[in-house]
């Protein structure tokens, strides 16, 4: 089957057709998913970074797919172990492919929303204007909404695939929630490490902030909450 046709079937979520793909050993489908993630996230990331500067667009186009690949790779062993202990019947290879396919769906959704994101960029107060704070906030809000929607869609598809492949629905749901928790936990921290994606108006354009591994996402959230309360 042609790769493009497979991507369409993947979006449609026809789990009867998709489930057998987990048993394939050829690298062609893996490569298709990886290229789709790279292209889709690069396209969306480039648009998101445009508001700050063209250079930020290039950086974000590189970092968005990188974050996904690092999350998949970083949690590959853990996700495979969860699949084993919760009785999904999936191997480590099948686990990685299933998760890669869900990220592929998210990337396709983000790529499809890129023209809308570009239109928003064209209508957002630019960096040089007095309303640049509004521009930054609007860009951030739209980015969060689009990524959240793509994520929810992709994970619903993943759950449906697991329900098809696992022996019981209970096993499918345990595996799914464990993968989601692990990927969110690591993904949030990777987004912190790889920041900035949009680029704060008051800070210089950098590929990574100085000492990127220092500090973490959760400490920053706790600090913000503490500052709000006090």
């Amino acid at each position, binding site marked *: 089957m042609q790769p493009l046709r497979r991507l369409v079937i993947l979006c449609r979520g026809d789990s009867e057709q998709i489930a057998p793909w987990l048993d394939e050993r050829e690298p062609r489908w893996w490569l298709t998913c990886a290229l789709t993630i790279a292209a889709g996230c690069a396209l969306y990331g480039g648009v998101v970074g445009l508001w700050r500067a063209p250079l930020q667009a290039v950086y974000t186009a590189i970092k968005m797919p990188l974050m996904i690949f690092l999350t998949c790779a970083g949690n590959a062993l853990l996700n495979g172990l969860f699949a084993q202990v919760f009785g999904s019947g999936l191997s480590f290879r099948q686990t990685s492919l299933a998760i890669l396919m869900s990220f592929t769906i998210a990337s396709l959704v983000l790529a499809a929303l890129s*023209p809308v994101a570009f239109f928003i960029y064209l209508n957002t107060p630019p960096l040089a204007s007095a309303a640049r704070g509004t521009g930054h906030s609007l860009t951030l809000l739209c980015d969060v909404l689009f990524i959240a929607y793509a994520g929810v869609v992709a994970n619903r598809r993943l759950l449906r695939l697991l329900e098809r492949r696992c022996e019981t629905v209970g096993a499918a749901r345990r595996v799914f929630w464990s993968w989601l928790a692990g990927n969110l936990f690591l993904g949030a921290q990777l987004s912190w490490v790889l920041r900035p994606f949009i680029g704060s108006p008051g800070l210089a354009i950098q590929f990574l902030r100085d000492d990127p591994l220092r500090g973490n996402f959760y400490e920053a959230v706790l600090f913000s909450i503490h500052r709000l309360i006090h």
Partner: protein
Amino acid sequence: MPSDAGLGVILDTLLKRPVLLIRELCEAPVSRHWALLALVAIVTFALYGLVIGSFSGGNQWMASPLKVSAGGLLSALICLPSLYIFACLTGAEVSLRGLAGVLFAMLTLTGLLLLGFAPVAWVFSQSTDSVAFIGTLHLLFWIIATSFGLRLFSHMTKVLRVADRVHLKVWTVIFLLVCLQMTTALRPIVGTSEHWLPTEKRFFISYWIENVFSAALPTAPR
């Protein structure tokens, strides 16, 4: 409906038996209907743009039709990729050409209804000097016309036997927001300005709050 149906048959089917047209657009292997529908949509929008331009006159006779038709087409093209992916997410088996046809059918129906509102809009255009009032009226007519147009997507989900419609509803919200922002991106469409296009970027809600809701009361009736 024959695949070589003329424009009259297509429009008649669109108005009286839209499900039949949707089925033809989605299921026919090759169809030129989408091109005809796109053309009609552009023309009907341009004609309604003339009515809008009649309020201010001058450059707006040319600017308003251009902006209304270009704005409608641009909004559709911006949202077409997401329409295809979101339609796939619903499980619908439909080609990009078929979806483009449905989208242009939606715009055509919207344009035809706007033409129906055109005499009413013209009468009110001549009755007031208030940009805020006439702008709001045009917006209201556009909302009504678009709501009829968007019903075609409901027909499409029935034709394609789609159970999960939430993604198309999300797409509808995106499309409406893009259209509403387009009205601000291409301003002025109703009033006048030294420039054909704005020199400042504004979000449509803040622009409306500033110009429509806080505008001075219209002048006394003529």
